C-alpha cells in the first residue's frame, strides 16, 4: 500500500510537466489532462484512506522511502513520505477540493487562451502541496513549501498583463520569503540541535532538549506559518492575492495553501508543547489575526477581498486553536477541513457571480441576484450559514469547539482568548451577512442594459453543489462520537480542557453573538437600500478599507526604514571604505609628487648625487671597519 503514496504526488507532477512543456498541441486537451490527473490523485487518496480505515488506530501510519537525496557524511536528507492520519486528512482535502476546482476551472477559464498553462500551474500546485503534507522530514517539507509559494506566485500573476496582478504576485512572493526565512532558520537550528530533521526523531527528542532552543525553533516556525497563512504581521499579501483568477483564490488562498501554516504548527506540536513562550506567541498571533481579518472583511466592497479578510480571520481561529496545545490541535484541523469546504464554496460562488456579472467585483454594483442565479444563491447561502456557524452546519461544530478550547486555556488568558474568539464570531456573522445581503438581496444596483446576470454552466455549478453539501454535513459528521478527534488523536494527541464555562453556555453565547451580528448587518444593509457610491464612513471603516493601514505601516517602517538604512550604509561606504582607499591613493600621489622634485633634469646635479652617494658609502664602509 505504501508504494501508492508517491503516486499521489507523481500524478499532478506529471500533469504539470506535460502541460507546461507540451506546447500548443495540448491546448485542446490540456484542461482534461490536468483535471484527470487531479482526480486520479484523489482516487489514489481514497484507496489509501479506505485501507487506512481498515487498520487499528495505532498502526495506520504508512512510510515510503523513495531515495536518499543528499547523503553526505553525517548529513542525510531523504525523499521519503509519511502518511498518517494528519497527512491523510490534508491529502483528501487537497485532492478532493483540488479536483473540484479543476472541474470548475474548465468552465471558468473557458475563454482564456492560456488555459492549458493555467491547468499546468494548478497541477504544479497540487504536487507541491501534496509534497508539503506528505514529507517525512522538514527539508522535504521545505521543498513543498517553496513549491506552493512558486505556484501561488505564478497563479496570482496569471493575468500578468494587468499591472495590479503582476504587482500582487510579487508582493505575495516577497512577503512569503520573509516567512520562508523563518522556516529555513528553524530547520538549521533543528539540525544543530537534534542532528536530523526527520519528523520522527526530532519530535521524539523534544523532551530532553533545552527550552530556549525549542522556543527559538517554535518562534521561527511561527514566522514561517505567519508568512504562508497570512497571519499578522505578514498578512498584507492575501488581500492583493485576489488579483488571481477566482478558482485560484478558492483553492490556494482559501482552502489549502494558506492552511499550510496550521499544518506546520500542528505537525510540530511536540515542539510547541515543550515551549510555552512560543505557544503563547502562536495564540496571540491567532487571536489578533482573527479580529484583524474580520474587521478588514467588514469594510471591503470587493467581494473577493471581503472573503479574503474572512479567510485570514478563519485561519486566525485555526492558529489560535493550534496554539492551545493538545486541547486544540484536533479542532484546528477540523475547522481547517470544514473551512476548506465552505470557503472554497464561497469563493467559487463569488466566481460564479463575477462570471455572470461581466467580472464586476464591487458588491455595491450587485443586488437582487438571487432570482438570476438560483444555484449560486443556494450554494453560496449554505456556505454563508456554515461560516457564520449556524447551528447544525459545519462551521457551527468546528468553531464552537475552538471557542470552547480557548476558554479552556484557563486563567485570564482563557477569558481574553475566549472573548476574542466570540467577538470574532460576531464580526464574522456581520460581514458575511453583509456580503450576502449586498449580493443577493435588495434592489438591483446594476444596469440591466449592460449586464445580463445568468447562472453559470454545469461544470461550475456541480463543484459548488458538492462543496455546499460538504459545508452542510462535514462538521456534523465529524462530530458524531467525536469521530474526527478520535481519528487524529494518535498523531496530534488530545486532552480535554477544563473550561470555566460549560459547553452549553459557550454554545448559547455563540448563538447569541451570531444573531447579534446578523441583526446588526440586517439593520445596516438589509432594511435600507445600499448606496452605490461608498459612504465616507468612520475612521475605523476607512482604516479597514485600507486593510487597517498594513501597507502604510510596512511602507513607513520597512520601505522607508530600509531606504534610510541603505542610505546610511552608502554614506558609510563613501566616507569610510572609499575614504580609506582614496586616502591611501592620495597620500601615495602626494609622496611621489615630492619625490619627483629630485628629478631635476640637470645631469650635473645627478652627478653630485652620485658622488655624494659614493662618499656616503665609502664613509659608511670606513665607519663599519673601524667599529
Amino acid at each position, binding site marked *: 500500500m505504501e508504494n501508492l503514496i508517491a503516486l499521489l504526488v507523481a500524478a499532478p507532477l506529471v500533469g504539470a510537466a506535460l502541460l507546461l512543456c507540451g506546447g500548443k498541441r495540448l491546448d485542446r486537451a490540456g484542461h482534461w489532462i490536468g483535471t484527470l490527473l487531479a482526480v486520479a490523485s484523489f482516487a489514489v487518496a481514497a484507496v489509501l484512506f479506505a485501507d487506512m480505515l481498515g487498520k487499528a488506530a495505532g498502526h495506520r501510519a504508512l512510510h515510503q522511502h523513495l531515495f536518499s537525496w543528499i547523503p553526505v557524511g553525517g548529513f542525510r536528507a531523504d525523499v521519503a513520505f509519511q502518511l498518517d492520519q494528519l497527512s491523510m486528512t490534508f491529502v483528501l482535502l487537497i485532492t478532493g477540493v483540488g479536483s473540484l476546482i479543476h472541474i470548475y476551472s474548465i468552465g471558468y477559464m473557458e475563454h482564456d487562451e492560456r488555459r492549458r498553462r493555467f491547468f499546468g500551474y494548478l497541477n504544479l500546485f497540487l504536487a507541491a502541496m501534496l509534497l508539503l503534507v506528505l514529507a517525512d522530514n522538514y527539508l522535504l517539507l521545505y521543498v513543498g513549501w517553496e513549491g506552493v509559494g512558486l505556484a501561488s506566485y505564478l497563479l496570482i500573476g496569471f493575468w500578468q498583463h494587468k499591472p495590479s496582478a503582476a504587482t500582487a504576485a510579487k508582493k505575495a512572493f516577497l512577503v512569503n520569503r520573509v516567512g520562508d526565512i523563518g522556516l529555513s532558520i528553524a530547520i538549521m537550528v533543528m539540525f544543530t540541535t537534534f542532528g536530523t530533521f526527520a519528523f520522527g526523531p526530532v519530535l521524539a527528542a523534544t523532551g530532553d532538549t533545552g527550552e530556549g532552543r525549542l522556543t527559538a525553533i517554535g518562534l521561527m516556525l511561527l514566522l514561517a506559518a505567519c508568512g504562508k497563512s497570512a497571519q499578522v504581521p505578514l498578512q498584507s499579501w492575501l488581500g492583493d492575492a485576489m488579483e488571481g483568477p477566482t478558482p485560484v483564490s478558492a483553492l490556494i488562498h482559501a482552502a489549502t495553501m494558506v492552511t499550510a501554516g496550521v499544518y506546520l504548527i500542528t505537525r510540530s506540536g511536540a515542539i510547541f508543547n515543550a515551549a510555552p513562550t512560543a505557544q503563547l506567541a502562536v495564540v496571540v498571533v491567532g487571536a489578533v489575526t482573527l479580529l484583524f481579518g474580520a474587521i478588514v472583511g467588514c469594510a471591503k466592497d470587493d467581494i473577493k477581498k471581503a472573503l479574503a479578510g474572512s479567510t485570514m480571520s478563519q485561519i486566525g481561529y485555526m492558529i489560535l486553536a493550534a496554539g492551545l496545545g493538545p486541547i486544540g490541535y484536533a479542532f484546528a484541523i477540523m475547522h481547517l477541513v470544514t473551512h476548506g469546504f465552505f470557503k472554497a464554496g464561497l469563493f467559487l460562488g463569488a466566481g460564479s457571480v463575477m462570471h455572470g456579472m461581466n467580472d464586476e467585483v464591487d458588491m455595491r454594483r450587485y443586488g437582487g441576484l438571487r432570482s438570476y442565479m438560483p444555484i449560486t444563491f443556494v450554494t453560496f447561502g449554505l456556505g454563508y450559514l456554515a461560516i457564520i456557524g449556524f447551528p447544525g452546519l459545519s462551521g457551527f461544530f468546528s468553531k464552537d469547539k475552538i471557542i470552547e478550547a480557548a476558554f479552556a486555556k484557563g486563567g485570564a488568558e482563557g477569558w481574553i482568548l475566549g472573548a476574542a474568539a466570540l467577538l470574532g464570531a460576531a464580526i464574522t456573522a456581520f460581514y458575511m451577512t453583509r456580503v450576502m445581503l449586498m449580493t443577493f438581496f435588495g434592489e438591483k444596483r446594476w444596469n440591466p442594459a449592460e449586464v445580463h446576470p445568468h447562472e453559470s454552466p454545469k461544470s461550475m455549478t456541480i463543484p459548488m453543489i458538492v462543496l455546499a453539501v460538504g459545508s452542510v454535513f462535514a462538521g456534523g459528521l465529524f462530530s458524531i462520537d467525536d469521530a474526527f478527534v478520535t481519528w487524529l488523536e494518535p498523531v496530534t494527541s488530545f486532552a480535554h480542557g477544563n473550561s470555566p464555562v460549560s459547553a452549553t453556555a459557550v454554545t448559547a453565547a455563540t448563538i447569541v453573538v451570531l444573531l447579534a451580528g446578523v441583526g446588526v448587518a440586517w439593520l445596516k444593509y438589509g432594511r435600507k437600500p445600499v448606496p452605490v457610491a461608498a459612504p465616507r464612513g468612520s475612521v475605523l471603516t476607512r482604516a479597514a478599507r485600507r486593510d487597517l493601514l498594513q501597507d502604510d505601516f510596512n511602507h513607513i517602517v520597512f520601505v522607508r526604514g530600509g531606504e534610510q538604512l541603505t542610505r546610511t550604509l552608502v554614506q558609510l561606504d563613501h566616507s569610510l571604505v572609499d575614504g580609506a582607499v582614496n586616502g591611501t591613493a592620495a597620500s601615495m600621489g602626494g609622496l611621489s609628487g615630492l619625490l*619627483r622634485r629630485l*628629478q*631635476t*633634469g*640637470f*645631469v*650635473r646635479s645627478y*652627478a*653630485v648625487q652620485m*658622488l655624494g652617494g659614493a662618499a656616503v658609502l665609502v664613509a659608511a664602509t670606513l665607519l663599519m671597519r673601524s667599529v
Partner: protein
Amino acid sequence: MNPVNYLYLAALLFTIGAAGVLIRRNAIVVFMCIELMLNACNLAFVVFARMHGNLDGQIIAFFTMVVAAAEVVVGLAIIVSIFRTRHTASVDDASLMKL
C-alpha cells in the same frame, strides 16, 4: 720614492676630474674629466699593486682601460648625435626626459 706620494697624485687627479664633471657644461670636457677620474683610479690601482707586491691591481687597471675604451666609443657617439640634432654640446640642455 715613497709610493704614498703617487696616491696623493691619484687623489688630486681624481678631485680635478670630479670637479670638472660637476662644474663644466661642455659634454666633451665632462667626458675628458671622466677619463681623468678613471686614470686617477688606474694610477691608484697600480700603486697599490706595487705596495702589496702582487699583480691584482695591475690586472684591474687593464680592465679599466678596456672598459674606458669601450665607454669612450659609445659616449662619443652619443655626444656627436646629440650635437647633430640639438647643435649644442651643453649637458644642461639635454633634459628632454624630465617631466
